[in-house]
């Protein structure tokens, strides 16, 4: 709870921390003493701090983050408009990452120290080291500009044409996914290797079950808990990465809105996005904490059914 308080308080205080009067930032050139007073009143800056915080939180709790001085649109409605794009990217990236990472991890664990495993260990170090903006441009160049398989910029709403939407979302999602693939596959590989040492795997093998069956049915399940935790936690990283990727591929998501708002000094919108993202992040983390105990049977005291 204390964390929530500090997070919201710090975000609210953001407006005051900037250089100069927030009103002058908001108004730009068209500045008169009367207007400043007006803005101060609108923002509630003429009230004591605690009262301001109280009313701000009360409003924020109902998703009312005020109105943008730039677009005159409520901040929440512009966030909501763009939220689907960011969410789709994050989910698609997550899906891609798991789809690639699980088979790769199974194979590299099964043939640990084989050729592919060694290749993968180098490749994944490279993937972990490549930031989204480098990777995104490399992918855009080879798969978009050279091969022309995917559009490099632009976004088609899903309702308009699901196929075009997925085609457009693929490159950005892949960009986000690559780092995750590397991390997931390493983690899962290590866990599977540990599981394969267990006696019950040996027992399953000695019963003549095929390697594939043992890997998928016996080894994958008990090995996947830490992966699931990590996958949940990485949503925050995906949100951060989405900022870069959305700006890179010109996608109308929340991240792009954040960058635009920063560039146009639209403090209220920035504030709204930051507090929204931070709260979402805290809620996700808390859910995972609960979910982990629920997922891992050992925590419940009953072994996997």
């Amino acid at each position: 709870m204390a964390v929530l308080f500090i997070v919201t308080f710090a975000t609210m205080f953001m407006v005051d921390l900037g250089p100069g009067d927030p009103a002058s930032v908001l108004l730009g050139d068209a500045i008169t003493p009367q207007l400043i007073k007006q803005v101060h009143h609108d923002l509630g800056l003429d009230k004591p701090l605690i009262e301001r915080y109280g009313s701000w939180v009360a409003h924020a709790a109902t998703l009312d983050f005020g109105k943008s001085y730039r677009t005159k649109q409520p901040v929440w409605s512009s966030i909501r408009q763009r939220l689907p794009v960011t969410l789709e990217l994050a989910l698609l990236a997550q899906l891609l990452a798991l789809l690639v990472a699980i088979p790769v991890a199974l194979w590299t664990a099964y043939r640990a120290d084989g050729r592919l495993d060694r290749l993968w260990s180098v490749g994944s170090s490279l993937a972990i080291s490549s930031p989204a903006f480098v990777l995104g441009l490399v992918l855009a160049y080879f798969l978009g500009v050279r091969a022309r398989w995917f559009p490099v910029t632009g976004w088609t709403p899903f309702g308009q044409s699901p196929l075009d939407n997925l085609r457009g979302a693929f490159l950005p999602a892949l960009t986000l996914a690559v780092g995750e693939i590397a991390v997931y596959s390493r983690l899962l590989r290590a866990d599977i290797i540990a599981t394969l040492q267990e006696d019950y795997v040996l027992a399953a093998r000695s019963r003549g079950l095929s390697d594939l069956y043992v890997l998928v049915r016996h080894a994958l399940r008990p090995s996947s808990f830490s992966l699931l935790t990590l996958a949940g936690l990485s949503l925050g990283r995906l949100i951060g990465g989405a900022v870069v990727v959305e700006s890179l591929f010109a996608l109308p998501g929340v991240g792009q809105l954040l960058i635009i708002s920063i560039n146009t000094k639209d403090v209220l919108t920035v504030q709204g996005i930051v507090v929204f993202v931070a709260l979402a992040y805290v809620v996700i983390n808390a859910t995972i904490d609960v979910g982990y105990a629920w997922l891992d049977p050992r925590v419940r005291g009953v072994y996997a059914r």
Partner: protein
Amino acid sequence: MTAIEGLPVTVAAGIDPTMPPGPGGRSTASGVATTRRRGRASRVMAILAIMWLGLVLVLAIGADLLPLAPYDAPVGGPRETPGLRLHEPLGTDAIGRSQLSRAIYGARVSLSVGILSVLLGLAAGGTLGMIAGYFGGKLDAVIGTLNDSVLAFPPLVLLLAITAIFRQSLPTLIGSLAVLSTPSFVRLARAGALSYKEREFVIAARSMGASHARILTRELLPNLMFSLLSYSFLIVAVIIVAEGSLSFLGLGIPPPTPSWGGMVATGRDYLATDPQLVFTPAVIFLLTVLSFNVLGDRARRRFDTRASALS
């Protein structure tokens, strides 16, 4: 708020936890052989990483002494392609400025920002973490809560929020990146201090009447320093990526001072026709981050006996 407690420090800081890729279980005869092969490969990687970082560092430090073209004025036609020649081997950028000199001066920004802010984060985080771990109680709770609050923001979003508030400048950048790198060190130092504070040498020092300050600086700090420093390499890699991303978004060091992220960003408009404008700085950037990661991985495996304290 315990939600974030259980999360590996690396993930919390937005770092990709580079798991040591070595084989996990019991070692078999063939496992030993391959481990040795892996060991040799990783040693080669580490040497290459040191060589690359050394090169970049020497060039960045000695930039003023080198016969380099100015980084902010055109030296040739726009978008000359790189080639094996003495004059501008890396070609020129969109308005004819020397890519080589921009890359080298950019290294200055990336490295100094990365290293300085991590050192600041190390100092602040190490101190806070040691205090929290050593004294425990209320102080620990307060520091822990503050730490969790910083971690409650996705790293890049926090960085952008700070940039939105303050004017773009070098001190702002270093300060905000230091804030970003602090929580990892707090956790690391706290875990270390917790594990050492009941050890015999600390008890001995205390019974000899040593003050808290003396125990912290003379007994605990030397023991924690190695694991903190070895971890710093990984954090530097993360921070350089963060700085690059920020510059790429146009919110880093203001132009005309070159930065790698900014170079990539300006090259982006010519991706279809002159991809080298993106790829040259991108490759340099990538190699640098990779080198820090390789060295960090190695250093951590060697020095950090308390890796388990992280997760």
